[in-house]
């Protein structure tokens, strides 16, 4: 075998020269001859009937080619946007989402018409002239009110607003009998905007003569777009080429589904016989692209006074929006991971999906796993507070320590060393000194808080045995490796890279597995016209553990064939041929070696062994035996000013374990960004709708605080390495880890800081305003108590 020289090395990214010099190729950079620009006319109402649409003025506006409404699309699109079959088996109500509204709109931003014009400004101008006569209806905005009997419904005529209601594991009063203390809390997960820096966009070019569609789109899942959008628009996959990007400016889960504008642009191109381009503006993005989180958790925790965790009861309510998200139900995984890194006798869990007149929620970085971490890490701290135990000791006492570890829902954690990452984090933080400093500062009326998050996650989605029944699709991954006659290597993979650095890290794997120069390898992804028939895309921290493994498999198949041919050329028995660093030789005669490139050249020529076909290339589909289970320990240190409610983050330490590492520079980058997205949820970000009118109140980036460099503290990273037994590379995944871990660490730190006020729980975002009010209430409460005692 090749020795490992590239795997584990800090290789600088091959993606970067074009991106730092302004030569990236993003969707808005794409132009085609005779292209028309599409503007989408969207509902300003959260819920309304459409009485009529008058496009006569718009059609007369300068540069306008056409205005299309439901009536134009209805015979060209079959069905609607797909919703994954299960994740949650007991779906009650799944309203069909046709890509454009017919006679009712159910969220602000739902498309009602599209305008095509020569220039984007002309299309935008004409869109203002489309007269839509709406009859506003009661908007259902609050998920608790939406669940009440007699609530208005999100869709007229619907039975109720319940999308699903599933109990994974029933409540057990028995289980709580052993508990000596019981703590209850309601934990909110506010709605978030994903905000990839590049919004979405589409260029659809339908060729009516060849009956062929080329669709450029800013997506994480080109093959699924081809499958779902193409099929719904009456085209076979062989007639459709989808190109993601070619460069895609971030995704964070918001680009993992087929979107209505893709269907609309395809049919608009077909109807107008022009290439059609649609580019999402940012304010449009905030209503048209899916949101994340939007959940309420009611939890009840039972423990013994010595800190032994006994029982947990979790009820999750998810704000689905007007239509169920394509992968929205995946977020119910929060229930299955609600036990975190700990041993529990019993966990009861129920998930309820509730429709509201808002934009759909769908996975956003971490999807279900940040929520699980947040609730269980809060639960641990609440119990620690209740019994007066150090939260570090409570964690240690209850960690799963034997691996593989089967959790209460039958999920098998592949490997772990939870105490190991915790020890390292405590050491880096000087935990004991911090506690002493906290004590001293409290005497001065200053409030330091130390928060822990000993997180786990499920990733590497995922084994077909689990994902096919759960998602309706087997989330395996494909690859193709080609050795050209002169030795160059082309690699195609079904995952997609939009910042994850796959072109670099996957080439590192290929270089080591084939023993060829890194620079001789060309990586390809994101174009359905190339490589294997199906690709499964990028989400769920899966690309390396599934896609990387698939590439390795294809490389090994190529080596296997090359070895047979090498034996033939070297006139030796195959069993005596050794493959070492890209060269084949007969045992004991390393001086007479044949390079892989030489074998490749021979493979396309004459004189092959009996029965061997020409060529040196292979296709593989990797179906992992299990998910992978990264973990880690984060410590956040904050000081809260009780007079202003301001949080000063003094330190953030993250010790993470994602198994073997291909490129530590890339892993650190993923952690940085992920941690900051979780900090952003904890402190800054919140999507706010007006409960009465249904209007989005955070409708531009002026109203929604995406943190800048100025809001973010220094991050201290470290790691341990516990290889995954689930794949031969021993890798796990790191794309979402930071976000999964960090919100809990921050909020635990704030609650710890405010313990002297008797504050046990703080919701997100922990804005100065929210904290100041909570501190004031706590002070009034304690003054009142003192008053009462007098």
């Amino acid at each position: 075998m090749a020795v490992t020289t590239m795997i584990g090395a800090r290789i600088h990214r091959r993606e970067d020269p074009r991106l730092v010099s302004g030569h990236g190729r993003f969707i808005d950079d794409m132009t085609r001859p005779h292209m028309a620009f599409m503007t989408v006319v969207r509902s300003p109402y959260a819920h309304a009937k459409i009485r009529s649409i008058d496009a006569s003025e718009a059609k007369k506006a300068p540069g306008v080619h056409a205005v299309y409404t439901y009536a134009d699309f209805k015979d060209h699109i079959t069905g609607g946007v797909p919703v994954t079959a299960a994740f949650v088996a007991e779906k009650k109500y799944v309203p069909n989402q046709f890509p454009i509204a017919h006679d009712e709109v159910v969220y602000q931003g739902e498309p009602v018409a599209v305008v095509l014009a020569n220039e984007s400004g002309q299309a935008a101008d004409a869109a203002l002239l489309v007269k839509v006569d709406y009859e506003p209806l009661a908007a259902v905005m609050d998920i608790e009110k939406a669940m009440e009997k007699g609530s208005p419904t999100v869709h007229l005529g619907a039975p109720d607003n319940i999308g699903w209601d599933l109990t994974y594991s029933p409540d057990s009063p028995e289980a709580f009998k052993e508990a000596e203390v019981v703590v209850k809390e309601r934990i909110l997960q506010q709605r978030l905007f994903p905000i990839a820096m590049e919004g979405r966009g589409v260029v659809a070019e339908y060729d009516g003569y060849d009956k062929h569609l080329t669709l450029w789109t800013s997506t994480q899942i080109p093959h699924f777009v081809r499958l779902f959008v193409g099929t719904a628009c009456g085209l076979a996959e062989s007639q459709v080429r989808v190109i993601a990007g070619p460069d895609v400016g971030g995704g964070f889960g918001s680009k993992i589904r087929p979107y209505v504008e893709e269907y609309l642009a395809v049919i608009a191109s077909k109807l107008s016989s022009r290439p059609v381009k649609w580019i999402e503006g940012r304010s449009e993005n905030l209503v048209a692209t899916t949101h994340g989180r939007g959940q309420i958790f009611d939890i009840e925790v039972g423990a013994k006074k010595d800190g032994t965790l006994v029982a947990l009861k979790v009820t999750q309510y998810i704000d689905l929006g007007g239509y169920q998200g394509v992968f929205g139900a995946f977020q119910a995984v929060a229930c299955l991971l609600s036990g975190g890194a700990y041993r529990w006798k019993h966990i009861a869990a129920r998930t309820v999906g509730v429709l509201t007149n808002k934009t759909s929620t769908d996975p956003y970085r971490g999807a279900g796993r940040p929520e699980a971490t947040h609730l269980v890490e809060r639960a641990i701290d609440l119990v620690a507070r209740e019994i007066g135990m150090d939260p570090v000791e409570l964690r240690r006492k209850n960690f799963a320590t034997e691996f593989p570890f089967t959790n209460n829902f039958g999920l098998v954690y592949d490997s772990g060393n939870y105490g190991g990452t915790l020890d390292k984090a405590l050491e880096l933080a000087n935990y004991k000194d911090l506690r002493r400093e906290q004590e001293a500062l409290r005497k001065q009326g200053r409030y330091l808080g130390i928060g822990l998050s000993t997180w786990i996650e499920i990733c590497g989605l995922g084994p077909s045995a689990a994902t096919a029944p759960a998602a309706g699709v087997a989330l395996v991954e494909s690859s193709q490796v080609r050795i050209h006659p002169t030795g160059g290597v082309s690699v195609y993979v079904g995952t997609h890279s939009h910042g994850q650095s796959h072109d670099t890290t996957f080439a590192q794997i290929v270089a080591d597995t084939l023993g060829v120069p890194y620079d001789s390898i060309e990586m390809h992804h994101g174009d359905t016209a190339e490589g294997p028939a199906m690709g499964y895309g990028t989400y769920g921290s899966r690309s390396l553990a599934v896609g990387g493994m698939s590439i390795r498999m294809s490389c090994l198949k190529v080596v296997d064939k090359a070895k047979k041919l090498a034996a033939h050329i070297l006139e030796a028995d195959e069993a005596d041929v050794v493959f070492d660093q890209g060269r084949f030789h007969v045992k004991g005669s390393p001086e007479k070696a044949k390079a892989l490139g030489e074998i490749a050249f021979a493979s396309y020529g004459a004189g092959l062994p009996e029965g061997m076909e020409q060529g040196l290339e292979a296709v593989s589909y990797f179906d992992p035996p299990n998910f992978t289970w990264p973990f880690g320990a984060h410590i956040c240190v904050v000081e809260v000013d009780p007079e202003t409610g301001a949080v000063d983050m003094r330190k953030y330490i993250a010790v993470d374990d994602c198994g073997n590492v291909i490129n530590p520079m890339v892993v650190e980058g993923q952690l940085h960004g992920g941690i900051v997205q979780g900090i952003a949820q904890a402190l800054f970000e919140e999507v706010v709708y007006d409960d009465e009118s249904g209007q989005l109140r955070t409708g531009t980036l002026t109203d929604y605080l995406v943190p800048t460099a100025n809001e973010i503290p220094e991050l201290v990273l470290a790691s341990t390495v516990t290889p995954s037994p689930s794949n031969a590379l021993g890798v796990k995944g790191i794309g979402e880890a930071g976000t999964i871990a960090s919100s809990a660490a921050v909020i635990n730190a704030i609650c710890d800081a405010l313990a002297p006020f008797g504050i046990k729980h703080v919701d997100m975002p922990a804005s100065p305003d929210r904290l100041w009010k909570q501190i004031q209430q706590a002070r009034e409460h304690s003054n009142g108590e003192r008053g009462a005692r007098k």
Partner: protein
Amino acid sequence: MKHKVATTVNGSKHEHEVEPRLLLVHYLRDVLGLTGTHIGCDTSQCGACTILVDGKAVKSCTMFAVQAEGRSLTTIEGMAKDGELHPLQQAFWDEHGLQCGYCTPGFIMAAAYLLDQNPNPTEDEIRRGLEGNLCRCTGYVNIVKSVQAAAKTMGGAHAKPAESQSAVRGS
């Protein structure tokens, strides 16, 4: 009615008739074909469209093209000279200062102005100097390191060297 606008962009002279409402960023992208300047919002928050106007960092969505009359503009495409990356571009590459790369041109242009004004900034000055730009991938950690590294190669006398973030690695 269209108006004439004459500018120098990355050293080349251009003259066009444009609509008065055309934003400078659209002029650069759609008229001149310089698509390295990106658009990430519609309220001037994100800074992806930052360029230099007579040497000063400007969000090009905040100017009309006609306001650039007679000005000298530098975009990300004008930063590399004779096939050599600008030290900031090199530093972003070296320090992994980008992931998806969409915000990167704006950060590099904003940082160019920052270092022009203050060749030897502290970390705090860098963070404050870049607060007009948003990045969603990097958490800003390696962007700050990139600017520190560029300051060093560009000759800032006391620029702090970029330190490795990870104090400890391996088990």
